[in-house]
C-alpha cells in the first residue's frame, strides 16, 4: 500500500460516492468520469500500462461522454432530484449480488493463487496483442460479432421508417 495507491483509491471511492449522491445528474456523470480516471490511475500505478490507458480511453473518452450525451438529450440535466429511497433496497441487493459473483469469480480463478510479486514482461502491449490474436482469437471474434450485431441493431432501431409522403418529399428535394 503505497501513498499513491491510497490517494488514488480515495479519489476513486469518493468520486464513486459522489456519483451516487449528487443531486444533479450531470454532476453524477462527471463524478463518474473522475472515478473512471482514478481507476485508470490505479491500473497505471500497478504497472499495467495498456489496461490503464485503455480504461481511460474507453471509459473516460467514450462511456462517460455517452452518458453525458444521453443525459443531455433526454432533458435529464434539467431536473435535480434526491436519490430516491424507493429503489435503494433493490439497488443495494443487486449491487451486493454482483459484487458476490465477481468476488467469487476472482477468488476461485487462478489469479488469487498466483505469486504476488509482479512480473514485468519486456514488451507488454505486444504480448497482449499476440495472446489476444492467437490464444484467445475465438472469444475475440465472438465479441466482435456480438458488437457488430449490436451496432446493426442500433442502426435499425434508429432507422426512420419512411412514410410514402416523406419519401416523395425526399425525392423532390
Amino acid at each position, binding site marked *: 500500500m503505497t501513498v499513491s495507491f491510497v490517494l488514488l483509491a480515495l479519489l476513486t471511492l469518493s468520486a464513486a460516492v459522489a456519483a451516487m449522491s449528487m443531486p444533479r445528474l450531470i454532476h453524477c456523470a462527471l463524478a463518474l468520469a473522475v472515478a473512471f*480516471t482514478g481507476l*485508470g490511475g490505479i491500473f497505471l500505478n500497478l504497472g499495467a500500462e495498456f489496461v490503464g490507458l485503455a480504461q*481511460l480511453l474507453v471509459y473516460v*473518452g467514450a462511456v462517460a461522454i455517452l452518458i453525458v450525451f444521453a443525459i443531455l438529450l433526454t432533458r435529464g440535466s434539467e431536473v435535480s432530484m434526491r436519490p430516491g429511497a424507493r429503489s435503494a433496497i433493490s439497488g443495494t441487493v443487486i449491487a451486493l449480488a454482483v459484487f458476490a459473483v465477481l468476488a467469487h469469480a476472482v477468488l476461485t480463478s487462478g489469479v488469487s493463487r498466483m505469486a504476488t510479486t509482479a512480473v514485468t514482461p519486456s514488451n507488454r*502491449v505486444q504480448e497482449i496483442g499476440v495472446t489476444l490474436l492467437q490464444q484467445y482469437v475465438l472469444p475475440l471474434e465472438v465479441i466482435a460479432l456480438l458488437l457488430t450485431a449490436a451496432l446493426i441493431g442500433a442502426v435499425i432501431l434508429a432507422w426512420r421508417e419512411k412514410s410514402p409522403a416523406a419519401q416523395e418529399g425526399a425525392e423532390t428535394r
Partner: protein
Amino acid sequence: MNGYFAMATGLAERVDQIFVTFDHWAVTNTPEPLRWLVSILLIVVPILAVFPGLFALTTVLERKGLGRIQNRYGPNRVGPYGLLQPIADAVKSLTKEDVVPRTADGVVHYLAPLVIVSTAFLAYAVLPVGRNMIAVHLDAGLLFFFAIGSATELAVFMAGWSSRNKYSLLGAMRAIAQMISYEVPLILSSIAVIMIAGTLSPEKIVLEQAQYTGIFPHWYVFTPWGFAGFLLFMTAAAAETNRSPFDLPEGESEIIAGYFVEYSGFKFALFFLAEYLEIFAVSGLGITLFLGGWSAPLSFLAVIPSWIWFFAKLLVMIGVFIWVRGTMPRLRMDQLMNFAWKFMLPMALIDMVCAGVWRFLPGGALWVVLRWLICAAIIVVPYVALARGLEQGRKIEQRVYRYAEEG
C-alpha cells in the same frame, strides 16, 4: 580529413544531446533528497515554457499569414513587424474582468478551462522532440496520447454545459459529436503505423524511421499507405482540434464561439491556449508517426540537431494549418458527418489493409516497384470510388438564383 570529419560529427552529436547532457548533469549534481524534484522540474518546466511560447508566436504568425492571404498586412504595430503583439494580447486578457454568468454552474464552469489546459499539456509527455528527448518513456505512449486527448471532450462538455447558454451548449454538442466521429479515423490511421513499426512507443516509431537508404530516410509518409495515412491523420487531427475548416463547434458566425462563449479574460485565454496546444501536440504526433519525428530529411543533414528538425517540421505543419484555414470555408454539420463516416472511416480501414499488404509482400529487388504499385492501387481505387459516393452524383454548378436576379 577524416579526423576533422570525426570531430565535426562528434561536435554535432554534442550539440544534439546538449539538453540531455545538461539534464543528466543537473540531476547528478543535486543532493540526493532533491533529485526527484529536479528531474521532474527539468521535464515539466521546458514543456511549460516552450509550447506556450510557440503558441504566442503562432498567434501572431497566424494573423500575419491570414492577412497576407487576404492581401492585408496583419498586425504590424506592436514591436518590430508586430512580433510583440502576443504580449499586448496577454496583458489585455490578464487585465480583463472575469465574468461568470449568474446561472452558471460555478464549480464546473471554473474547472473546465483548467481541465482542458492540463490535458493539453499532458499530451506532450509522450512526444519525442529530439533524440532521447521525451518526457516519459511509456511503452504504450500512443495510447496515452489518445487517452488523454479524449479527456478534452469532457472538458469541452463541461464548459458548454456549465455556462447555461444555448450557444455554448450547442457548441459543446457539436464539438463532442465531431470529436467522437473524428477520433475513430484518427486512431485507425495511426494503427497502420503501429502495425508496420510493431510498437506503441513513439520513440521506437521514430527510431524505425530514422534509418536511411542511401541518403533517403525511411519516413512512412513516403509509402502509399503512409501518405494516405498521413493525410487522413492530419485531416482528422484538424477536425479533432476544431481547426478550420472543421471549426463548427466554434462557428463565430453562427454560434458566436460556441462552448467558450461565456468565458472571458484569463479563462478565455486558457481555452485559446489549450486549443493551440492541442494543435501542436497532434501535429507533433503526426510528425512522429509519419514524418520521421526528429530525424533529418536527408542523411547528411543529420549534423543539424534533432530538436531543430522536430521544431522545424512543427512550424511547417503550423504553416500548413494556417494556409488551410485561410483557404477553406467551414463545413456544414451534415457534410462533416458524411465526410467522417462515409469517407474517412472507410479510407482509414483500407489504409490498414494496405499497410498489412505492404508488410507481407516481399521486399525483393523486383518487388519494390510491384509492391508500390499494388499498394498505391489499393489506396487510389477506393479513394476515387468513395469520392464519387460522397458527391452522390451531384454536380457542383454555378448557382442559379430564381428570384433574386429577376428584379
